[in-house]
Each structure stands twice: as C-alpha cells, then as structure tokens.
C-alpha cells in the first residue's frame, strides 16, 4: 500500500517556491500594505512578547559581559575624554559669544525662530532579524503614538532612520543606511540627497545635483530644512573624503555617525509637527526633545 504512494516532495517544493515568489511580488507592489501588511503585523504581535521576555533576560547578561570586556579600556578612555572635554569647554565659550550675536542679529532682522517641542518616545531595541537585515524592532508602537514615517534618533540626537511600520507594542525601524528612500540633507550651504549604500553598515552617498561646490573630508552632514521626512539640523554623518564637483554635480561618500548594530535605545520623534505645519507664518523649527516614557506622546 505504502509503495503506491507518490513522492510529492518536488511538487510541494515547486508550489512553495511559487507561493514565495508571489508573496514577494505582492509585498513589493503593495509596499507593505494590504493583506501582506496584516500578516506581517500578526507575526510581529505574536513574537513581540517572547522577544521582550528574552531581551529582559539577555540584556543584563550582555551588559555584564560588555562591561567586563570594556573595563581595561575605561581608564585610558577616561583620560582622553577629560582632555577632550577641556578643549570642548573652551570651544563652547567661544560659541556663546557667536550665539549672542546671532540672537541680536535675528532680533534686528525680525527673524522669528519658533522652537517647537517635539514629543519624543524612548524605546528599547528588542529584535533584529539576521545579519543581512539592518532593520530592527522596538518595544513601543501605536499605543505610544508612534506611526510609520516618524524619524528615529539615538540617545545623542544623531539620526538613525525612520519608522517603517508600527503596530500595537512594536515598531520596525529602517535605518537610513538601509533605506531605499533618500534623505534631503545639508552640507555646508549645499542641499543634497543622501542615500544608503545597501550591504554596508555605515556608508552613505551624498549627491548634490545643482551648482555644487567642493566639500572637505570631515564636513558635517545634517538634515535639511527642505526635508519633509526629517526635522532640520539632525546630525547624520560626516564626509569621508575631499571631493570636487564633476560638471555641476557632486557625489561623495558619507560615514554615518550612528552604529546601527550597537543601538539598544532609540528616540522616536513625533514628526512632522502638525501645529507648525498649519501655522500662518513661516516657521523655522529646531528639535528640542521632550522625552516621554510611554503612553501617549
């Protein structure tokens, strides 16, 4: 009786491969929405409590191991940091004078600088899929007011990326270095488009398409006031090498400030600020974070 049974391994294999290809096509075409989005959301909800529990156990242990490994380096690092602090304090004193001048000039020119308080939700990184995917999951989602598109920064205020998807109790964050959508940024007085080099952890490419001027290695790249996706002036990275325009365009590498793989806590910004967007007068907004620990933001 058993011998008459047909081997259905190959048909099963072909069927599953066909289903996988169909799912991929649907997901890419629907851009994460529709039925595929519901399936994704369901899987995340299912795994989120297990991940949170695992992170609760693993994180203290990982911290202990990391601290133990770092102990030897701490003394020399402390001395170096003290020296750096002294330099920065001197530099800060010089900046105070410039800020006072800027304040006076703004008053003289009647430039109103409205500083919006951007609500911030702090969240723990609870999961990463595998070594090929830089996206990660955090333990706060819709219930904390986090929605798809919200910018994400690290504890130092450096730009990490944006929320790709948000559900109850979780959100998936796609770092800028792995994002297919470019960010509008400023380097010096030039506005350009910054996109990730997929397959790397911290490399980005800056393109300035019109009236480009040379840039120098070490120049800071920050989000532009022309960006719809991110608040202005968020530090993103620094130019890796001196570069001159070819024709009117400039292309140069940028190293991201944030090491995405080592992130444990991130801040999600409630952006865009709807109040600022509906204001009658043009508004210049500068991020000034107000951290919430959960609930609404």
């Amino acid at each position: 009786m058993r011998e008459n049974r047909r081997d259905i391994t190959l048909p099963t294999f072909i069927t599953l491969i066909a289903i996988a290809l169909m799912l991929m096509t649907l997901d890419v075409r629907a851009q994460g929405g529709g039925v595929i989005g519901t399936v994704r959301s369901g899987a995340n909800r299912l795994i989120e409590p297990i991940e949170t529990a695992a992170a609760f156990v693993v994180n203290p242990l990982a911290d202990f191991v990391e601290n133990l490994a770092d102990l030897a380096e701490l003394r020399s690092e402390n001395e170096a940091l003290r020296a750096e602090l002294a330099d920065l304090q001197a530099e800060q004193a010089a900046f105070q004078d410039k800020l006072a001048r800027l304040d006076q000039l703004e008053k003289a020119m009647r430039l109103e600088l409205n500083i919006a308080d951007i609500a911030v939700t702090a969240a723990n990184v609870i999961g990463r899929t595998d070594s090929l995917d830089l996206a990660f999951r955090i333990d706060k989602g819709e219930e904390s007011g986090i929605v798809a598109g919200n910018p994400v920064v690290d504890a130092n205020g450096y730009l990490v990326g944006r929320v790709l998807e948000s559900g109850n109790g979780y959100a998936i964050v796609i770092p800028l270095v792995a994002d297919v959508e470019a960010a509008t940024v400023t380097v010096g007085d030039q506005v350009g488009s910054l996109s990730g080099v997929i397959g790397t952890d911290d490399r980005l490419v800056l393109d300035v398409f019109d009236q480009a001027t040379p840039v120098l290695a070490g120049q800071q790249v920050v989000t532009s006031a022309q960006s719809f996706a991110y608040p202005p002036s968020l530090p993103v990275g620094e130019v890796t090498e001196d570069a001159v325009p070819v024709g009117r365009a400039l292309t140069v590498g940028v190293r991201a400030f944030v090491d995405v793989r080592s992130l444990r806590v991130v801040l999600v910004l409630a952006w865009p600020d709807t109040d600022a967007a509906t204001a009658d007068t043009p508004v210049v907004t500068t991020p000034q974070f107000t951290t919430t620990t959960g609930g609404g933001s």
Partner: protein
Amino acid sequence: MKTKRALTVVVALILAIAIQTSVFGRFRVGSIAPDLVLVVVILITLQLAPSPALVVAFLSGATLDALSSDALGLRALAYTAVAYAALRTRDRADAGPVAAAVWIGVLSLFGILLLVVVGTLFGQIDMTGSQLVRRVVVVPLLNLTVAFLLIPLIERVQRPARRFV
C-alpha cells in the same frame, strides 16, 4: 507520537526565532550573527518527512520575513530551497557530527547566496555591498560552529530514530 514531534518542532522553531532576534541581536562576531533558524530548519529535515519539512522551512522563513524589513517570501523561498537541498543530500549527515556540521555550513552558504541573489533581484539587498561578502562568508562558518555545538545536544535528546553516526 506525531503530535509530540510536531509540538517539538514548533517549540524548537519559536525558540530559535526568539534566540536569533534577541540573543544574537546582542552577541555578535564582528557585527555578524549566526542564522540559527536556518540551522534548526536544516536539522528538522533530518527528523520530518520531506513534504512537512519543506512546509516547516517555508513557514519559518516567512515568519522571519514578517519580522524583517524585507519583502515577505524572501527567506521563505531561500529556506525552502535549502530544506529541499538538505532533503536530497541528507545522507551526508550520517558520516558523523563533524561531517554533519560541515554539511550544514555548506547548505547555509547556499541559502545565504540564494537570499542575496533573490534579494538583489527584488531590490531588497544589494549584492555589490562590500560588507555583504564578509557576511556571506562568515554566516555559514558561524552556522557550522553552532551546528557542531548543537548536534551532540540533539543526539542526547532525540530518540534513536536518526543519529549522526
């Protein structure tokens, strides 16, 4: 007996996914972690009948896809292909734990390469990325190591239905 085996497979996979996404999210070798779920999927092909093993591989990959930012179906496809290759070559695992670990390492390399190629075709991964090459090489090596550590454990736990001897 079948229910017990199915339950064991489900628990093993959920544990593997939880460990991979949380524990290996923190403990990495040069920012690269082993693909534990892929190792477990390959080991499951030694325990289940061919068709259920393929379905389990597909569902495991699909679950990981749902947790990632990549298109749903990418890992499902790669894991199913790896499971099929494992089913066709599973006699290699009979030569002993070291041979079984090497076999898992080779299958992992096949899986990662497939993931990169299909991912690139669907615009999810860029196979020209410099650090990608390092990952394609290191992940199978880490998988081989994990498998080498896991196999004796499984040998102790499992019934004598199939052993790596």
